[in-house]
């Protein structure tokens, strides 16, 4: 029986090449793209879930400030971990991770290798027992035998030592500080929020913050929110109670502090990747949007299949009735049609696998991920099974039910009640185009938002500025500066602790005249020289900038937001205290965007340093290579031990929106594919309509209808459906995109014409698809079509 079904199904597939091709191409692309998106979604959802104790691990965040200046910060003061472990019963383990900016290169023998910022971290010893990161070599109990120990990842080991055993080997941080390898860690999985190349003992950080210098001692410094702290919590403990207890400990240990200065919250480790500390979307929204897009694309592909197969059911009604007359039961016919769909799916699925393998490298580039499509991977099969079962059920049952339900005697005479399922097909076409129009609107709005971000007045000039650390040049900066500015290729020079496009962090350790007791201000501190404001063309709304006089070290410049949120009236000349340093406000700088446009402008404060760590060089587009060469000369003179590397701020800025760029590119592609698959279906339906109306067209032509008349007649019905789809999709897409835009503090306006454009695009595409068939049918010789009747 099965053999017979398969045989019939296969011959049907072969005999109707045109429709089979349409069906299979649509399904292949739909399945491939649907699975690609779901693989992406699965990758996003898999972050940080691989730890055995993942359910018990929380990250401590701090809600700081009041009112408009309130924000939830992902770092907390270092003492939280130590005090929490000691005084809060529900906490089993506490581990801190602090990014190290101490070194940028390491030397092993003659090898000098660069380590990117953010790849080095200080960790507590329990890091290796709390998390499932695998220590391949070394001792989990005493990972760092002494403070000069370092644990490196497998690929870092390979990089430095090749095939030699790394254990006990010594590398030199910035070519001077020796560290001995005491362990080798398996590389961090790609879906881990915690990553890096080298891990150092937290003791080293503790030594750095010994309380003797500018900073307080590490375990006494409650004002500096710089440690990422993870807690393992007893399964029965209340996270709310633990957070409250931590806040209480903070109040007790930092005199003069108010609850508004730092309320701790616990965020599940598993949510760290997709949610911001404040619970807003850090990616979960995109995950949701992409999941919906995947479902829509699969639905569109299913609808194609259903439409084409039910439309063509008329042509198969004879076969169905003959089978019934000679003894086929309905269930047998139902099975036959299910098997036809299954066969079609199997062919499409195999092609889809091929397609996925083929585009995976490109897909990884576009999405900025390292995903693998491995048919031996159980996770991949989850995606495949989900996709296939859902789409197969969706597209097989209705056609099979419809076909097997024909009354044999009616079907044989061609008296199929076509009206009912024609309406159903129309509804499906409307759905299909509604999805497509929705995706087109989404695409337009996402692209507009991205170009808006690029065109927004940031409040500073970052063009043709490149940055590099001064290192040893710092001690000779004045001389270097004096020489460099004489070159026409160099338009300006400045130094600062961090650039205008991002801030390094923020602190609530502030005080000022007239500070209300319940007000807390989280502020982003910048150390800058006298040229910084000028170089980046930051504008003053009051007062002046630094001039380089000695007293400038006791001067502060605030941004507008800081003044507003602190509630300082007539700020110039008022007292302001940052950490332990009292000073006078001498200027207020106009607000500028020093963070992602997803965030509103935060308070910022500028302190004077004659020479800060980072060097900024302004040049012109044309002179950039020459300027880079000029700076390199000094680099080689003073920093010979370090590779010469610089970053253009424009590039760094674009990097901040990389995720958005990836998202937008993917969305464009997906929307395009959705529209394409819809059109395949429409093309098939139009072809079919032209076929069954061949006699009507012939008669009309004989009676004098023009080609235009016929084309209009055939296109009209479909265009009406597309218009209905536009009417349905527009408000929904509008609402959804509005919600997406809410994520951005600065967003483009939604205009009605966006919908009009999307609608027009859909109509034009649909018309082009249909009219090809319509014109062909209209041009056909009526004598031929009438004679065949």
């Amino acid at each position, binding site marked *: 029986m099965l053999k*017979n079904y398969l*045989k019939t199904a296969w011959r049907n597939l072969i005999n109707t090449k045109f429709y089979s091709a349409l069906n299979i191409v649509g399904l292949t692309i739909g399945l491939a793209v649907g699975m690609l998106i779901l693989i992406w979604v699965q990758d996003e959802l898999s972050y940080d879930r691989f730890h055995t104790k993942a359910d018990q691990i929380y990250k401590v965040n701090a809600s700081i400030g009041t009112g408009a200046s309130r924000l939830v910060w992902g770092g907390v003061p270092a003492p939280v971990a130590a005090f929490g472990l000691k005084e809060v019963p529900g906490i089993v383990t506490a581990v801190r991770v602090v990014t190290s900016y101490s070194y940028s290169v390491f030397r092993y023998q003659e090898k000098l290798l660069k380590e990117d910022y953010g790849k080095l971290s200080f960790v507590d010893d329990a890091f290796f027992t709390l998390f499932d990161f695998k220590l391949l070599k070394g001792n989990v109990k005493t990972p760092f035998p002494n403070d000069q120990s370092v644990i490196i990842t497998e690929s870092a080991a390979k990089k430095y030592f090749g095939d030699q055993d790394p254990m006990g080997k010594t590398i030199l941080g910035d070519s001077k500080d020796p560290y001995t390898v005491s362990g080798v860690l398996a590389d961090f999985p790609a879906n881990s929020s915690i990553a890096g190349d080298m891990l150092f003992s937290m003791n080293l950080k503790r030594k750095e913050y010994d309380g003797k210098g500018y900073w307080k001692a590490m375990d006494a410094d409650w004002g500096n929110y710089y440690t990422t702290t993870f807690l393992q919590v007893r399964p029965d403990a209340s996270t709310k109670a633990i957070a409250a207890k931590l806040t209480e400990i903070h109040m007790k240990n930092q005199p003069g502090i108010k609850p508004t200065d730092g309320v701790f919250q616990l965020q599940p480790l598993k949510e760290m990747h997709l949610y911001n500390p404040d619970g807003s979307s850090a990616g979960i929204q995109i995950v949701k949007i992409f999941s919906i897009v995947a479902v829509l694309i699969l639905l569109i592909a299913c609808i194609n299949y259903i439409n084409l197969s039910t439309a063509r059911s008329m042509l198969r009604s004879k076969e169905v009735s003959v*089978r*019934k007359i000679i003894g086929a*039961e309905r269930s*047998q016919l139902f099975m036959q049609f299910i098997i036809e769909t299954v066969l079609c799916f199997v062919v499409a699925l195999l092609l889809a696998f091929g397609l996925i393998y083929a585009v995976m490298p490109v897909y990884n580039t576009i999405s900025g991920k390292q995903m693998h499509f491995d048919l031996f991977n159980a996770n991949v099969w989850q995606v495949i099974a989900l996709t296939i079962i859902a789409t197969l059920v969706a597209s097989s049952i209705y056609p099979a039910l419809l076909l097997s339900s024909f009354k044999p005697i009616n079907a044989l005479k061609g008296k199929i009640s076509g009206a009912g399922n024609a309406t159903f097909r129309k509804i499906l076409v409307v759905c299909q185009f509604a999805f497509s129009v929705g995706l087109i609107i989404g695409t337009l709005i996402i692209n507009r938002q991205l170009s808006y971000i690029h065109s927004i007045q940031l409040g500073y000039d970052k063009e043709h500025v490149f940055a590099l650390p001064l290192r040893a040049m710092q001690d000779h900066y004045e001389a270097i500066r004096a020489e460099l500015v004489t070159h026409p290729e160099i338009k300006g020079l400045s130094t600062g602790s961090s650039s205008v496009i991002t801030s390094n962090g923020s602190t609530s350790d502030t005080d000022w005249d007239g500070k209300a007791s319940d007000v807390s201000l989280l502020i982003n501190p910048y150390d800058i020289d006298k040229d910084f404001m000028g170089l980046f063309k930051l504008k003053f709304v009051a007062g002046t900038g630094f001039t380089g006089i000695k007293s400038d070290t006791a001067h502060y410049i605030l941004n507008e937001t800081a003044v507003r949120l602190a509630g300082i009236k007539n700020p110039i000349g008022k007292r302001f205290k940052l950490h332990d340093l009292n000073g006078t406000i001498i200027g207020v700088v106009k607000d500028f965007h020093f963070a992602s446009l997803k965030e509103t402008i935060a308070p910022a404060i500028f302190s004077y340093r004659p020479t800060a760590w980072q060097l900024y060089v302004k040049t012109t587009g044309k002179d950039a290579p020459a300027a880079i060469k000029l700076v390199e000369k000094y680099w080689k003179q003073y920093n010979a031990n370090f590779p010469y590397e610089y970053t253009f701020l424009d590039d760094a800025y674009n990097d901040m929106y990389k995720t958005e760029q990836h998202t937008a590119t993917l969305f464009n592609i997906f929307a395009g594919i959705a529209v394409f698959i819809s059109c395949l279906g429409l093309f098939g339906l139009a072809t079919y309509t032209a076929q069954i109306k061949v006699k009507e067209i012939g008669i009309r032509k004989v009676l004098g209808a023009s080609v235009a008349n016929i084309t209009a007649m055939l296109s009209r019905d479909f265009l009406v459906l597309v218009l209905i789809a536009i009417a349905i999709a527009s408000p929904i897409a509008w609402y959804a995109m509005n919600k997406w835009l809410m994520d951005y503090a600065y967003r483009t306006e939604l205009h009605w014409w966006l919908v009009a454009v999307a609608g027009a695009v859909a109509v034009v595409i649909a018309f082009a698809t249909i009219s090809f068939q319509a014109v062909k049918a209209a041009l056909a010789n009526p004598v031929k079509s009438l004679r065949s009747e």
Partner: protein
Amino acid sequence: MEAPMIKISNLEKFYRTEEVETIALNKLSMEVATGEFVAIMGPSGCGKSTLLNILGMLDDPDAGSYIFNDIEVARFNERKRADLRKHNIGFVFQSFNLIDELTVFENVELPLIYTGVAASERVKRVEEVLDKMQIMHRRNHYPQQLSGGQQQRVAIARAVVNKPKLILADEPTGNLDSSNGNDVMELLTDLNEQGTTIIMVTHSEHDARYSHRIIRLLDGQTVMENIMV
């Protein structure tokens, strides 16, 4: 006396559109004995095909009784009718109605598949009947590759492969030239002589002469019966 294979009494069938009600069968009664060869004749629209469809259990009557082999089937649901049909009745159509995607062999095999006959047995029976119809040499051809006469032979082969008690033929020679038509009528006569009951709808007086009895219909009623000698 043996009970008739088919006994219908006061059979009625109406076709309704929104405004018009057409009577296809008007209190029609008739009997067909086992082993009979009956021709049904009459002008277009007299109800011949409707009658044949009801006899073949492809359609149900609106009123009246239809007893087939001592079983009242007029009120049977579709599933029961289908079951009865596939074990007892074979159909032959004017337009052959072979399935284009299947070969001659596969077309003939199909009824056996649906009645659950084992594969080895199927091959035996299909070959037997193809041999009898003298189209064995065409067993692997598709219907489009055959002449009309050959197609109708395949259709008859398919109709008889399940060894039905009754064959219903709807203008079996309507699409054939006279030579092929005569061959088909000979085949049907042979089958009848071997014991199969045949009811045939036809426009052709020539074909009707092969039967034992002609029932003439007009406006859904029997107007005349001729017994052939």
